[in-house]
């Protein structure tokens, strides 16, 4: 993406105290924006929280809480969850629900983030599809199931950018002759 204004002017440079970047990164993963709030970068923390969690909640709502689930069975490889997991703790209930379903226990919270049951293969007959919970969700929510999945995946991927920002500060393009190693006190200069 073209971006000619990434190099800060000398008088626009400010110092950022990243505190402990590893701790900030873990917080940023666990809860979007929390890493920045830990670093006392409140405005950016709130911005990340609003954008990422807003996208996440909107997507989750589009699919009535069914678009985020953890499942890796023969007929249902839910790889999307790997992207959704980028959002951290808000995606953890899916793991709990997955374990409960695997242990033949009833899922909590009316099946919120629980994996679908009786998923059959793509080549199954329409008769077999009647018991397929995933097929029922697709039938019930139509495009919104895909849209909700997309929203929650993008929220998880956006949080990876936020984690990077919490660990390393803003990604500013500095010409090579101006680039230098960050000072040992963990502070980074930014525009």
């Amino acid at each position, binding site marked *: *993406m073209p971006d000619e204004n990434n190099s800060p002017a000398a008088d626009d440079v400010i110092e950022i105290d990243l505190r402990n970047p590893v701790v900030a990164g873990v917080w940023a993963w666990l809860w979007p924006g929390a890493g920045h709030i830990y670093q006392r970068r409140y405005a*950016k923390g709130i911005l990340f929280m609003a954008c*990422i969690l807003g996208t996440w909640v909107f997507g989750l709502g589009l699919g009535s809480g069914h678009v985020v689930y953890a499942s890796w069975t023969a007929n249902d490889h839910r790889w999307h969850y790997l992207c959704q997991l980028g959002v951290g703790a808000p995606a953890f209930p899916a793991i709990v629900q997955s374990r409960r379903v695997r242990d033949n226990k009833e899922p909590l919270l009316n099946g919120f983030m629980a994996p679908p049951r009786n998923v059959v293969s793509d080549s199954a007959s329409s008769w077999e599809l009647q018991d397929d919970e995933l097929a029922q969700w697709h039938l019930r929510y139509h495009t919104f199931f895909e849209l909700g999945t997309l929203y929650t995946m*993008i*929220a998880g991927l956006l949080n990876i950018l*936020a984690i990077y920002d919490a660990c390393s500060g*803003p990604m*500013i393009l500095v010409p090579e002759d101006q680039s230098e190693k960050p000072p040992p006190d963990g502070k980074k200069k930014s525009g």
Partner: protein
Amino acid sequence: MFELLAAAVHNRLWYAIPLIVAVSLVYGATRHELMGPILNNALRAAVWIVSFMSIIFGILYVISWAI
């Protein structure tokens, strides 16, 4: 073309808007620290995304027209 755009008004393209806003703001926030430059960068990113999507839309429309 206009019929297609008119149909788009009533379809699910509107669901792209919150995504464009969120992606632009997060993208801008990963490149600047202060709110002013973040919003400027986000605005440019949003224009870039919409332009890119419009170009793809145009290409697909021309292709579908030829079929």
